[in-house]
């Protein structure tokens, strides 16, 4: 193998060529026309929204349900189908002809429930597909990561399922909005119900997923149960995805605790609950109390995964398809007609977020993010399944009633696993924006992005 000699001058020449080649394509980097904000649809007949949901990984089923809800929302906004919640939403500026007369188009992507993949997917939607709004997600880490990205890029982010206090607490952003409730609200809603059901004399043992969401939820629940007089026996962190929880469950048996609180979500929740029941915890009697288990955050899909074991176990949820109000019924009906089964709470919150965004654009008269932020901040609405709701201006968190649910003893179908025990009124779960669990963040200024 022969190689030519290379000397220093050749290297310099190569370097110069490299510089030239690097400069040339810079001409293509900017759009020729001026626009006032990123991805302004201008005179186009359509506007593009980005639906960023987990399609692979542990939350793929939730992601699929979210995507179904988004597709339904797009149909309804565009005036197709039966209109769903468009008919029950109060007030509503939506006309059923798209948003601001533009037909809604959408692009989809896979978050893989990983921050990097979710951000890459969102960036594609923003940079390549020209999305003016990103929505979706099924975990707090991803929601916070994408929310940060949307803030930096200058588009609106409407969070999907994210329960961590941080999303609208220490990591809140001006361009991001959350309809879903949070860990603190779960705690506030559960406290009184647990007091009523199990009394004031309880000794609680926490098993907590060892990451940010688990910690904030544990802190929230601990505060509210101690408030009703319960003692906290112990708090133990479990690694995420532990699989076998037996080494964490056996110590509970002899700890003197009579209540087990599982601050787990997803697969961890299914596994820890299943195994706790197998260890006979629920058959025990400690200090004259029947041993009970509490799962503060329920998801119907996950409850299905735990099967029989959820029966009689308390928890909280953002929404449930069995709610009798007009809005919920309209949504369940059109979702059921389209797909043949009832929607999950993840689907509901995503559907509502899409509609709220569309409505805000109509009211603002533009897609410009800062104007939309203005239209959403402090916006009060009703008829979306959660009763009267407000998007609080200070932290972009929706304030509404919270559902306390219980695993149903006699389910009538595979979807009918939870029953609503109580609808905790908004006043009881509301907190000041500078509450200790939410302090430390700053919405900052809004960002229109550079066109």
């Amino acid at each position, binding site marked *: 193998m022969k190689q030519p000699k290379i000397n220093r001058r050749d290297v310099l020449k190569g370097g110069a060529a490299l510089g030239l080649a690097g400069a040339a394509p810079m001409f293509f980097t900017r759009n020729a026309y001026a626009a006032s904000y990123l991805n302004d649809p201008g005179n186009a007949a359509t506007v593009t929204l980005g639906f960023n949901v987990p399609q692979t*990984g*542990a*939350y*793929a*089923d939730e992601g*699929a349900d979210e995507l179904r809800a988004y597709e339904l929302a797009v149909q309804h906004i565009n005036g197709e189908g039966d209109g769903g919640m468009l008919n029950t939403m109060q007030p509503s500026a939506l006309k059923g002809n798209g948003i601001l007369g533009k037909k809604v188009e959408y692009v989809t992507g896979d978050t893989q429930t990983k921050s990097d993949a979710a951000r890459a997917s969102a960036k594609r939607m923003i940079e390549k597909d020209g999305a003016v709004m990103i929505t979706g997600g099924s975990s707090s880490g991803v929601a916070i990561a994408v929310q940060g990205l949307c803030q930096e890029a200058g588009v609106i982010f409407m969070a999907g399922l994210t329960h961590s206090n941080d999303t609208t607490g220490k990591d809140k952003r001006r361009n991001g909005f959350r309809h879903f409730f949070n860990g603190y609200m779960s705690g506030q809603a559960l406290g009184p119900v647990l007091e009523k059901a199990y009394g004031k004399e309880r000794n609680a043992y926490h098993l907590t997923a*060892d990451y940010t969401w688990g910690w904030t939820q544990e802190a929230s629940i601990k505060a509210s149960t101690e408030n009703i007089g319960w003692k906290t026996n*112990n708090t*133990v*962190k*479990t*690694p995420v*995805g532990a*699989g*076998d929880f*037996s*080494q*964490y469950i056996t*110590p509970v*048996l*002899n700890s003197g605790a009579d209540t087990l609180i599982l601050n787990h979500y997803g*697969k961890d929740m*299914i*596994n820890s609950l*299943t*195994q706790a029941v*197998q*260890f*006979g915890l629920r*058959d025990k009697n400690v200090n004259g109390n029947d041993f009970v288990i509490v799962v503060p955050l329920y998801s119907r*899909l*996950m409850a*299905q*995964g*735990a*099967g*029989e*074991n959820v029966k009689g176990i308390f928890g909280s949820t953002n929404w449930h398809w069995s709610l009798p109000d007009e809005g919920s019924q309209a949504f369940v009906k059109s979702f059921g007609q389209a797909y043949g089964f009832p929607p999950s709470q993840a689907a509901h919150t995503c559907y509502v977020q899409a509609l709220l965004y569309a409505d805000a654009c109509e009211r603002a008269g533009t897609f410009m993010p800062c104007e939309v932020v203005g239209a959403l901040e402090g916006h009060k609405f009703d008829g979306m399944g959660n009763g009267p709701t407000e998007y609080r201006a200070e932290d972009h968190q929706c304030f509404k009633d919270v559902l306390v649910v219980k695993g149903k003893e006699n389910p009538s179908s595979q979807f009918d696993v939870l029953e609503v025990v109580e609808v905790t009124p908004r006043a009881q779960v509301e907190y000041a924006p500078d509450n200790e669990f939410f302090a430390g963040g700053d919405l900052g200024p809004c960002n229109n992005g550079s066109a």
Partner: protein
Amino acid sequence: MLLIGLAMERGLIRHFYKRTHAEQILVTFGLAIVIQEIIKANFGANPIPTSAPDIVAGSANIGTFLGLGDAIVYPWWRLIYLTFSLMILGGVFAFLQFTTFGMVVRAGMHDRDMVNLLGINVERRFTIVFGLAAVVAGLAGVMYAPILPPDYHIGMDFLVLSFVVVVVGGMGSLGGAVAAGFLLGILQSFASMNEIKSLFPGIDQIIIYLVAVVILLVRPRGLMGRKGVMED
């Protein structure tokens, strides 16, 4: 399970015996992704609740049995699982150790060509061993289902851990794999105790890997590894 295992070996794996270990690992990994996605398409991504037969539901009061009060309980199903695994282990061990078939396979592991020269069809025996391995793994999965509701991703969750256990135990050594499994499991349980965690924060997260590193540094071929297996 046996059929799937046999089909896999015949159709794919056997063409890879002559390739490098890296390629063997990679092609099976690719296959795992494909199978996993097919399962997802058919059964969804959500875990499927599987309960143990009613007759063995609940837990055994071992404490009373041992005369220690009712402080120690253990689910019946886990006891059955334990007994069952021990039986399977014994069976596999006996099969590999005491039958001619097992002897040939062990010899073939060291020097396939030599055994082939002796006029024994090693390929066919490897196929059967692969099928057997699939059956054992499958049985483990079936029996484990009531403890851990299965979902399409469950294989990946166990992949790395089983890999570590086998290597730490010593490649080609059944006893080593069992010993490593017990050792890592017990250490993990100890590390999960709050008392120990407060001394070494995060120890429960890394104990398995830490022990794996130490063992491999002290014993180059794992706990009971023999010379000549997987070394080229």
